[in-house]
Every structure is written in C-alpha cells, then in structure tokens.
C-alpha cells in the first residue's frame, strides 16, 4: 500500500503525516508513506486545497486533516 500525503509543508500537512503514522502503528498495517511537496504532482491529482491524502493513487481526502477513524477505514478496506 502506498500512502501519499500531498502538501507544501504547512503544519496541517505535518499533522496529517503524524496521524497516519500513528494509525499505521496501531493497526500494524504495512504501508509506504510518502510526502509529496511537488506542486505539479499535487495538481495532477486534481487537488487544489492541501493537505490531501492519496492511497494507492486514489485521493481519499483533500482540504483538511483526516480523522483517525477515516484513515483506519481506508487502510483496512
């Protein structure tokens, strides 16, 4: 599983990474966590408001820091 965190480096993006890593540790799910800061790549996903999270290439949320509940749902689907 590849989890990409899209964001240009603001505190919300860092918070998103922390939450994702926390849930991954809690659930024991193996995943590659990548921070994408390149504007072109972010826009290619159609994302205009960061932070955003894409799992295996599919954008799951954009514009806010995701909920732990939601992250858990996405990675255990």
């Amino acid at each position, binding site marked *: 599983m590849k989890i990409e965190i899209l964001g*240009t480096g603001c505190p*919300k993006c860092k918070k998103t990474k922390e939450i994702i890593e926390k849930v991954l540790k809690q659930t024991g799910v193996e995943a590659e966590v990548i921070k994408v800061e390149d*504007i072109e790549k972010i*826009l290619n996903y159609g994302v*205009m*408001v960061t932070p955003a999270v894409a799992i295996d290439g599919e954008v799951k949320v*954009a*514009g*806010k*820091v995701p909920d732990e509940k939601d992250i858990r749902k996405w990675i255990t689907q």
Partner: protein
Amino acid sequence: MVDVFYPLQWIADKLTYEVFKIAPETHLAASVNFIIYDVLKIFILLAIMIFVVSYIRTYVTPEKTRKILGGRTGLQYHLLASMLGVVTPFCSCSSVPLFIGFVESGIPLGVTFSFLITSPLVNEAAVAALWATIGLKVTLIYIVSGIVLGVFGGYVIGLLKMEKYVADFVYKIKVGDQNRDQESLKIKERAAIAFDNVKEIVGKVWIYVIIGVTLGGIFHGYAPEGILAQYAGKDNLLAVPIAVVMGVPLYSNVMGMIPIVESLIEKGLPVGTALAFLMAVTALSLPEMIILKKVLKKELIGAFVLIVTVSIIFTGYLFNILL
C-alpha cells in the same frame, strides 16, 4: 432594541464586582470587566460564525468555484470571485495550488486576484471577533470594503495585463479531474465538518484572543481617554499611511490585534484608521508572499502589494471622513 449580549455583561459584572470583589470605578475593575465580557463574546460569536460559514462552505468546492468563474472576464466575475473568497478558507499553504488551479482552468488573472485579495481579508474568525468587539456596523463596513477592495484590486491587475509575470510552468500544468463525493454529503456530515472546523480554528486562535483581549483590557482600563485622538486623530493625515505600513509586514495573528484595536478606538483612534490597519494586517502577509513567489514573478507580486496597500490607505481616509 434588546441587547442580546446583555447576559454576558451580567456575567462579567457579577464576576468582577461580586466574585473577585474588585471595587467599581477603578482601573482594575474596568480592565477585568472588559476582559471577561470580550472573551465570552468573542468565543461565542467565533463558534457561531465559523460553524455557519463552514457549513455553507461544504457547498462551495474549489472545483465548483473553477466552473463558476472559468474563462470569462467582466466586472461581475470579479464580484463573484470576491464573494466566493469570503466563504473560502485561505490557509497560505493552499494559495499556490489554488492559484494554479484557477489560472489553469482559464479563470482570468484579474479575477483570480479578486479572489486572492478578499479571501484572507474577509475570514469568518476575523469577522466574528470584529462583530464581538467593535460592533456589527463596522464589521459590515469591513466586509463590504474587503469585497470592493478585491473587485477593484483584481480589476486593476487584470487591466495591467500582467499574465506574463506568472511563472511559466503554471500555464503548462494540467490539473487532474477529481470526482470526489463532495456532492453527496448529508446534513449530518456537513454539520460534523462545520463543527470540526470550529474546534480546529478555535484551537488555533484562542491563545491570541486571550492575549489580545488582556492587552486591550489593560489599555481600556488604564490608558487616558482620548490619548489616541491626540496622536492619531483624524487631523493627523499621516496616521492612515503609517498604520497601513505598520500593518502590512505584521504577521501576528489578527485575532490578537482586534481586541487591542477595539480599545484603541475607544481611546480615540478614528475608525477608518483602525479599519485600514486591520485590513493591512490580514490582506498581505509575508508568509503568503513567500509562497506566492513560487508562482508569481516579483513584478506581479510588487504590483499586487502596491495596489492593495494604496487601496487600503484610500479606504482608511474615506471612512475617517464618512464615519
């Protein structure tokens, strides 16, 4: 007309005179009373305002905004862009992707700037704090000024035809299409998002509100009447430009500034000058400029800063005369 906030004043009075037993008519009493009242009123209005605007915002997505504004030019689109800027959040980290997204989809540069100018200026937290402290009338003036500033500033930038000062790569990017289920949110989900937003924003600004109200309260209780009128009154023509020039590089949280400005107005600072100062603080911020440098060449950033600054100074003079 019934003052719907009277219960808060009652609480402030009760705490100040009966619980803390501070003697009335003293500087300390005035300060403490001010602080309690303002803190309560600001947080209540903050929660309401953020909730309402966030709820409305669940209907306005960047994608929809692009579709509404795309491709055409004309004063009405500047107005539309500014009004959309009012309900959209503008965390500086989103300014670049948002800007590129708009320009790429064919929204004219000037219209995009109308959005860029009004969006940080008229934000629901600042509006709530202004309403709580300085009053509804001035708050409405602030909102209208923010929209007019956006329309005017964006229009002028459009006239200047500065498209070539946008970084080249912006026009080459292709923004992907995202069909996320924003359309199918139920009322409960929208309310949950709005409530989350309240928690998030209040969590971010509460400390600034407390500090600002405390400083404002001390000034309110201890500073002599009319002291601001002496130094920065309406006949001091330099006051407005100085206030604006001070505000532009100030990147302190506007939420802390507003209660302080409230006290300054009480002590004689003209409302126009105060408005100009607050607008200067919110409309332009150094972090935003640094981020925008990635997509705008310095001539365009310079034009942007100059037009907005001059317009704000003009607004300050205008309201000093009118109010």
